[in-house]
């Protein structure tokens, strides 16, 4: 397996991770403020916080597909 595959997979995953990290950090900050004022919104905030998880998962899938499927 050549090194290009590795780098390609790493870039794919890194992109997803950075995107998710940035998105979730802002949601987390807003969420912390919301919960401080209205504790009954905790459930919704947790769900909102988890929604951007998709990006990193898809990034990981692409990285895995590159490593596994590209010959």
């Amino acid at each position, binding site marked *: 397996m050549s090194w290009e595959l590795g780098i390609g997979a790493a870039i794919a995953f890194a992109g997803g991770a950075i995107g998710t990290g940035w998105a979730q950090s802002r949601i987390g900050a807003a969420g912390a403020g919301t919960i401080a004022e209205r504790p009954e919104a905790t*459930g*919704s905030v947790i*769900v909102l916080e988890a*929604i951007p998880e*998709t990006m990193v*998962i*898809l990034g*990981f899938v692409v990285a895995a597909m590159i490593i*596994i499927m590209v010959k």
Partner: protein
Amino acid sequence: MIQKMKSVLVAGPKKDFNQIVDVLYHTGTLHLEDVNEYLPPGNTTVRKLEPEHQSEISALLAKIDGILLLIPKKPEDTEKEGRFYDEIHRMTTPGVIERANHLIGDLGETTRDLSLKREELEITIIGLGRYEKIIDKIQPLEQQLPILQGFEVTVLIVLKEFSDVLDIIRPMLSEITNNQFELISAELDEESIAAITVFNKKYSEQVHNFLFSKNINEVRIPADYANMPLEKALLLIDTHRRNAIAERDEITEKLSLVSSEWYPELSGLRKVLAEREEEIRAYMNFGETDYTVIIRGWIPGKLISKTKNALEESFGDRVVMTETNATEKMMERAPIFYDNPGWARPFEFFMQLASPPKYYEIDPSPIMAIFFPLFFGIIVGDIGYGILILLFGLILRYRFKAVKWLHQISGVLIISAFPAIFFGYLFGEFFGNLGEMMGWLEPVTLFGVTWNRMEAIVPLLIVTIAIGVIHVVLGLVIGIVNGITRKKRKHVCEKCGLLGIVIGLLVLLGVIIEMLPSYLLIPAFVFIGIATILVIYGGGTLGAIEIMSTVGNILSYARLMAIGMASVILALVANALGGAIGIVLVGVLIAVLLHALNLILAMFSPTIHSVRLHVVEFFSKFYEGGGIPYGPFGTAQPPVKK
């Protein structure tokens, strides 16, 4: 399923008003509604009930709470409290108010005075303690200083990190005081340095201003201890401090006595007052005429006879409760009372994340109870993890029987562990590829595909998207059914259109990959075209956007495959790492730790994503929510189901 709710009207003679309310309060089944919403405009017979004593009771409650805050708690005497409660509970409201006033008059002032005095003493004690510490430290320095008349002594405190500031202010002080000063410093404690400066009293004001402008912390020794040798000052401070502590303890003792004497009565009184206040707040919903009182509300069908019996027992024929015919508009406001079968009840926990359904809607919790474990199983898909999750759920359930939400979560985990084990068997996974490596089991071959999650990526992707299609189509169908029940034509059109587009796209896909005959191509396009028109007719531009979002939602189900794969690879890494390390013990330890991490992720992540799939993708197809949970008058929460 959602319980049947009946709209009822209770009417009775006005003179029995308090008792009627009391009986209803203690039966705790009626969900109140405001009478005024049902009255035709311009009616003069029925007026809103004016509750008396409301502000008085609120004020009294506030005062009692204030007193209760100040005196130490004595919860042991619940029996005594119970007796007081019974006694006061029977009194009429004016009587209760009078007693409360009497009690508060006696206690309120004493407790407040004592409490204030105690706070003052606390502050003094702390202050004295601080002086003591400082003087203690600078005492050795005192010897080095000349004791001169007309000179003033000031103590400065500087944080160690800013200790350079002393060197900076030295030349400046020298300038201000014409070199008639002395500055010596020593370490006070780990963080700060104390410095004494002695200078001519003439320059007192300038020096103090200068120090203040540099934000240097000055300790002003209070006048009582100022003009005496530090040794004597120390002794004096110590004595004062001891006296203050003794006095404070005395006050605490007094407050404790007050508490043991009056606490049970106060808290019993408080309970009664709180109940009365809630009752009075409910009165705002009632209506009255000259001789009758009118109450409207909702009762679940099951509990109507119980309430009727309670009313009959207390009042015979004098008070009447009738069911009224509810119009559709009224039913929209009916409260929701769940009565799900046991296997669906843990999933009500997730319904909290969306608001409760409106009365006429189909309750989604049973559907969630079927699909959630399925999604969970596909994502986790490991026999070993499934068994561990089952054990964990069982432990949670029996250890924390009392905590409601833990009970529900444990139910969810236990139910979802079984599909996880099943899919683990299908994928041939036992702690990742441990099972395969040891030759215990291997992935099952179905439909010509060996379901090894690492290799059969594309078939798995297709399966998960197929699940997505089924789920979304189900959601759309439910949306159509809801729309038909409420006779909302545009809604039905939009949902039918979306459904049509999904089916059309599927047929198109089938033709492209040559699973379906190619003559279906043109009809598929036509079908999609008609469906698009339906969508735009039913929903407008928003409907057109809905098309894209629906397709996106279906694709979103690919996460079932993706997250599962992530979990598999982590398990693989755990096994590989464990095997690669030469020392068996260390290898096993590392593998166990990584598997533990993976297990925790496997409990948290699939739950969140499955819930997200339901709440965002599934519910958006049909759910409206915004329902009112059933909160009957008399208890703060819905009654606990037996």
